[in-house]
């Protein structure tokens, strides 16, 4: 629109590069993160909560939380990119590259999945109870039922499935990242057309993979429990985390002088709307999952929630209602809040924290009835912060080394996105 004059910038404008102050953080962040991850593991191995078996279970579960936290952000960003192409969105072009950078971390995260894969082969069920063949017997599950369960939940088949998920997701991420970057050079319209044409099947693959990965990696921690809504539940949390992460990253980039003219209040407003929407969507799914199980009141279904109504988990379950729904819901309800980038940024950080607690609440009650005391909290903190540091540091390092622009500079819809206005 006539009020905008800044799409005159050339593609190699310095404000489209990763700011040096952020690039300098890459190696320290990754190094400190890696160190924390190792220290967390060591503390977990030596002085974790409970006896050796319990301690290992706790540590591996905390590692799974940390991994899932980072992975869910990238997963959500992959879907964000796919859905923008699928509905040919114009508004989001200025922030799509940020999401693409988060998305391209998936192949790297696949390496961090290896400890989980190893744990899934543990004959004592160190992380996944089903990898212990005696679990069914010791938990009063009829042998015939347990045999049927083991047909699906066994180390070999689990590893094959995990590999398929990671390969498919990495493939999608790399494909979309490469084409988008190629367009930075060529500016070819056909690249957009190709990405759009393939986004439909990609979304189908994505949704199947997400659902089954959620079943395998998180739901199978309680091997006898099942909820068909679980995949959507994880997806809702991931999308919330992805929109939060994109907001936080964009705000930080802008505060360091990059893409200042490109991302406007209008884009924050839209991100705020999506944050609000996914807070509501998450609540809707979480409550639907709860209510169906609560209403039917069948022991094999209530088991999961029963575990989360014991000890400290009970309070956390209640706190989730307020912290994961009511406060952000009321906080993001107003248009005035959503049109203030600083407030949207603050709420995004808040939502990333509660998303972590959501995952913590999903995984950790299966590891034990308590928070693990001081050492347990320390291990959880070290592993999460370490993993997150490694994740962000690696991303910055990759962006710097590969000279990745933080804006899709030659996207054909860039002018539309620059001129975007909410009414």
């Amino acid at each position, binding site marked *: *629109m*006539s*009020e905008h004059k800044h799409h005159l910038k050339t593609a190699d404008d310095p404000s489209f590069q990763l700011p040096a102050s952020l690039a300098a953080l890459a190696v320290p962040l990754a190094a400190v993160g890696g160190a924390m991850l190792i220290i967390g593991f060591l503390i977990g191995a030596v002085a974790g909560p409970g006896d050796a078996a319990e301690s290992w279970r706790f540590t591996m579960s905390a590692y799974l939380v940390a991994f899932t936290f980072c992975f869910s952000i990238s997963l959500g960003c992959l879907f964000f990119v796919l859905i923008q192409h699928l509905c040919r969105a114009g508004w989001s072009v200025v922030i799509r590259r940020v999401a693409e950078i988060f998305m391209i971390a998936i192949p790297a995260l696949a390496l961090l999945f290896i400890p989980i894969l190893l744990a899934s082969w543990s004959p004592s069920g160190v992380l996944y109870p089903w990898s212990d063949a005696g679990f069914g017997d010791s938990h009063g599950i009829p042998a015939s039922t347990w045999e049927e369960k083991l047909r699906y939940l066994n180390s070999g088949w689990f590893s094959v499935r995990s590999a398929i998920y990671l390969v498919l997701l990495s493939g999608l991420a790399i494909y979309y990242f490469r084409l988008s970057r190629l367009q930075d050079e060529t500016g070819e319209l056909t690249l957009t057309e190709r990405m759009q044409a393939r986004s439909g099947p990609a979304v189908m693959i994505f949704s199947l993979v997400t659902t089954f990965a959620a079943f395998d990696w998180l739901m199978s921690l309680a091997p006898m429990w099942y909820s068909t809504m679980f995949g959507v539940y994880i997806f809702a949390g991931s999308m919330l985390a992805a929109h939060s992460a994109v907001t936080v990253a964009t705000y930080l980039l802008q505060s360091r002088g990059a893409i200042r003219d490109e991302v406007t209040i209008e884009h924050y407003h839209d991100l705020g709307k999506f944050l609000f929407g996914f807070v509501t969507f998450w609540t809707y799914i979480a*409550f639907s999952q*709860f*209510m169906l199980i*609560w*209403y039917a*009141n069948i022991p094999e279904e209530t088991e999961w929630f029963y575990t989360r109504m014991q000890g400290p988990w009970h309070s956390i379950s209640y706190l989730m209602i307020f912290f994961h729904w009511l406060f952000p819901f009321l906080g993001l*309800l107003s*248009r005035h809040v959503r049109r203030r980038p600083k407030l949207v940024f603050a709420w995004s950080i808040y939502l990333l924290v509660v998303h972590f607690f959501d995952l913590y609440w999903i995984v950790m009650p299966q590891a034990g009835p308590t928070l693990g005391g001081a050492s347990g909290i320390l291990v959880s903190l070290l592993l999460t912060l370490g993993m997150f540091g490694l994740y962000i540091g690696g991303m910055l390092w990759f962006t710097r080394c590969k000279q990745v622009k933080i804006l899709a500079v030659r996207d054909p819809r860039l002018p539309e996105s620059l001129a975007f*206005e*909410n*009414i």
Partner: protein
Amino acid sequence: MTDKSNKKLHGVYAEFDAVDPLLAACRRVRDAGYVKTDAFTPFPVHGIDKALGIKPTALPWIALACGLTGTAIGVFMQVFMNTFDYPYIISGKPFFSMPAFIPVSFELTILLASFGAFFGMLALNGLPKFSNPIFTDPGFDRATDDKFFLFIDSADPRFNHKGVARLLTDAGGANLVDVYEDDTSTQSPKWLWIVLGSVIFLSMIPLLLVARMRVTNSSSPRFHVFFDMDFSPAKGAQMTTSLFADGRSMRPDVPGTVAVGQFDRELDFYSGIDMDELARRDSGRAERLVRAMLYPDDPQDATADAEAAAEQPADAVPATDQPAAEAEPAEAATAPPAAESPATELNPAVVEPAPSPTGAAVTSEDTTPWLRKNPLELSVEVVERGRTQFDIYCATCHGNDGRGNGLVNRRAQRILATAWVQPSSLHQDTLYQDVYPDGKLFSTISNGIRKMSGYGSQIKASDRWAIVAYVRAMQASQNADVDDLPVDKRDELKKLKAEVEAKLAAAAEAEQKKAAEAELKRAEAAKQKPADAAAKAIP
């Protein structure tokens, strides 16, 4: 123009070719201080609100208020209905269970918020509006095609025809058009009323037909739109089913299970026997009794029968415990105790009956440690409960007063039923508390006696105890003295008695008077008759 001179000016609009000139013109008009303006475009134009200086709408607040109203209605309606007005157990959930209330509250929130947004939008826009003077100019039609229009209303406080025309021209507007108020008739056309009337009339026909069908008879069978809603496939009480081997649609408890609300008190409460004491005296019998309580329908073998019978120690009672047998002469005479219940033989634990050829003076001792005290905490409510239950289940035979002359008995005597045994009067020494403990009475109600079948499966244990309490109260009432009443009730009773007596006396007097009158009349009539006869005879 001249023919319009006597018409009132509505406003002026100008035509633009593209969005950008329109927005620039909007801004100029806004900056010039005009507030009653509007722009017309073939498609939504971002930023035009700002360009026209339109204030933020109040619509979100309307939607929020309506949404919160919906939440409040949803929550309060359900809490009121389900928790207070009509507490009804649904799916075993508490009357107040928030998770169950959330979906309805959520839907109502969305519904009312949507209504608020939709109707609020209409109201804020002054819609529906059936005509707009701007539409009268054919050139304006291009607002839905390829032209952009900016309109300034004559109601604007700054409106000045010449000034506005100049401003719009300066801002790049072309083809300025003066819009005049529409002075055509506001009367609705006649044909509209005719059509409307016809439609209303026609729509009445189906209703009239339905109404007619409801008051007329038809020989053809009713048409069932939803057959299985008219005839529910669900089984009613006492129906048969092919689903289960025993053909009963009412399912008995699964052996060895305890239904919710059952057996939540100690065993004494359900047997009327001090079980600890019984176990001490005769552990075998106590064990069989418990088994029989848990597996009432277990017809495994003779022993099982015996065990089941062991549950009914009262069975042996009639012959042993009521030697006088005034109430049941037939029973006592015709049914020797051993023959009455083979279980007694198999199970010596049951009160040992002393064989008595006459069935009269049996003085065997009842060794069962019956509970001597009603385990319920007695209160007026309990006795009232006992009365209702007694009147439902017991009074048909025993009579409301417990004298053994209920409706069934009266009918049996009228038809001279041969197999009928008169129900006991509950007002006899042998049934008083000192010889017939509460626990034994409870057991008799539960398991039956002679011809009376057990009511254990029909009356809840606590209600059976309430009946025991009521029977005791009834027994006491028949032998009560005025002094048994609390002091404040005595005067009341005396007054009542005086009243009743007075009424009875009055009634008796009235009766007497009537009788005397009747007598008098008859006497007069008798006197009259000979006189008449005489009168007849005279001519």
